[in-house]
């Protein structure tokens, strides 16, 4: 079944749980990896998708990111930022993927729709929302809004992750939501 989580609000307890998972993963515990995955899968997938704009690549990155976590957990240093760590791994993989392609793969709408159609959980509304996300926003806007909605990271953490100044993130976030709202209304 679909795992639902609410990460919109900062929750130090959630960070502690993620850190605990990483420590256990470093000890070779696959259940801990499954646990971390269950808690963070939408965030990792959403962020990857927001960078590569391609469902196929995003799925590969989702796979590779947790594999890299498995191998890299031993070097993680508890700093209260497990999500930022995981997302940095995701971002690096996604950017490498873009470099491999040499450019941003244009989104082929049919592929995207076919892929979504594979998943029975995806509703008509979901489809419209993802379409709006992928077509109406600029790259940074899409990444910022996805991070904010899915990861529980604060604007400042998003700024640090993306290497952007905080005011840029704030203004892009607010513009992105407006655009998304508009695109949603038009699609609806």
């Amino acid at each position, binding site marked *: 079944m*679909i795992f639902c989580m609410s990460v919109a609000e900062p929750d130090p307890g959630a960070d502690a749980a993620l850190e605990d998972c990483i420590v256990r993963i470093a000890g070779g515990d696959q259940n801990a990896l499954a646990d971390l995955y269950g808690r963070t*899968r939408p965030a990792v997938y959403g962020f990857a998708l927001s960078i590569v704009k391609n469902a196929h690549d995003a799925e590969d990155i989702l*796979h590779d990111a947790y*594999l890299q976590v498995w191998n890299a957990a031993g070097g*993680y240093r508890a700093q209260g930022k497990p999500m930022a760590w995981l997302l940095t791994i995701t971002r690096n993989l996604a950017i490498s993927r873009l470099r491999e392609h040499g450019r941003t793969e244009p989104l082929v709408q049919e592929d995207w729709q076919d892929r979504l159609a594979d*998943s029975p959980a995806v509703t008509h509304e979901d489809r419209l929302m993802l379409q709006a996300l992928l077509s109406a926003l600029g790259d940074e806007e899409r990444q910022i809004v996805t991070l*904010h*909605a899915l990861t529980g990271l604060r604007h400042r953490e998003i700024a640090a992750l993306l290497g952007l100044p905080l005011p840029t993130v704030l203004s892009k976030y607010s513009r992105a939501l407006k655009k998304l709202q508009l695109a949603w209304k038009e699609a609806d």
Partner: protein
Amino acid sequence: MDERELEQRLRTAVEHAAPDPLDRILASCGPQTGTVLPFEAPKKKRRWAPLAVAAALALVICGGAFGITSWRGANAVDSVVMLDVNPSLSMEVSAQERVLSVTPFNQDAEIILGDMDLTDTDLDVAVNALIGSMLQNGYLSDLQNAILVSVENQDAARSAQLQQHLTDTINSVFQGGSLEGAVLSQTVTESADLNALAQQYGISVGKAALIQEIIAQDSTLSFASLAPLSVNEIALITESRHLTSQTVTQTGTASTKAYITAEAAKSAALTHAGISESDVAQLEIEFDSEDGLMVYEVEFYAGGSEYDYDIDARTGEVVKSSREGGGSAGTSGGTASGSSGSYIGEAAATAAALQHAGVRQADTTYLRCWVEHDDGRAECYEVEFLAGSTEYQYEIDLYTGAVLKSERETYGTSGGGTASGSSGSYIGEAAARSAALSHAGVSESDASRIQVELDRDDGRTLYEVEFHVGRTEYSYEIDAASGAILKAEQEIDD
């Protein structure tokens, strides 16, 4: 649909769309390779007794007699072994682990080689001699103790074996020289790209590969800034930034003895800024290189401003300082302890925001207040509410209830009753809107989707005004204090 609902819908859509490859992931989980810089504990295993450095040197300098064996005929290059400390060199090695040739890439490597002729010596002997010479010449010491070993061989298993073997050998030499060294090792594959970079910067292909992997993960680092650094310095930078490596294995820890502590760098920055540590949030300290100089990069937020310092890692001197944004009236008081014991409480924070906005709670259609955390520390109260078609966002001081930041945004079309700016020194949204419309030569009744937002941008406070006339979108930035038009753009919608 408000912003919260929009985000919720986005969240749901991604949750539904995200595939579930957990089984595949778990099936791919092999033995953990521990592929992270840095690794803490040095490996214990020692296959060879430590060789005395002097003995190794003597062995080599005495000439080829020791090296001549029945393997001599085997001149085919099987592996390439590269060593980087700051001296950078490579050796071509036969399948029988005899050195066929040595190439120095920089002047430091030429100094190390001196008049040693390593051709046709056993690889172990050559490595012993080279490390010994680096110790003697001060390239390896308590202050700079890291070496990078890169192996290139078409057979991955053979590469891995040689990599391990060399790591052990070098650790033995370190031990013989009473040095707690760090050995980074990797297997590399040459490429035209790496060769070109190596040649350009006078480093081995191995070091080029390491740098390329690092900069791929951290866009603030550049190849040119890392190439001249020693492996010790590169290891410290990657360690402080928690960069992970898929390929590099490390034993031992890179030395920080040449540098002041991160704590001392932090103090230097805070003293320069005249701010006490309890007043700052999201403090980050990382090693960086500025024009070849090792610095601590210290970043933090305080009083709504972002501070950025480069502190000379050897001397503690402030090399660079900058401050961006903020300077707002609010001061963050109190200590940022985790306890909420002395916070004013959500009700009081909400009341402070409503009072500032001149809005009664009963008139809000959406009202939310929470404690904003950054880096695990409580930072301020965030209060958001909607009254009519205006959305308000506030940051309220945890202890004093002071308004640290306020933003409002009015949705809706023409004629909507926009509240005039309550901040006395600003021209107000209505005036900003008029200024933009009049600049565009558009009457309010012809414009649709008018949006006015008070924003801070690079320390300037301005109104962002957007509206549409037909398919044309107009975007303006209006100085909030003077009403001057800072930016005007128009764009035809697709």
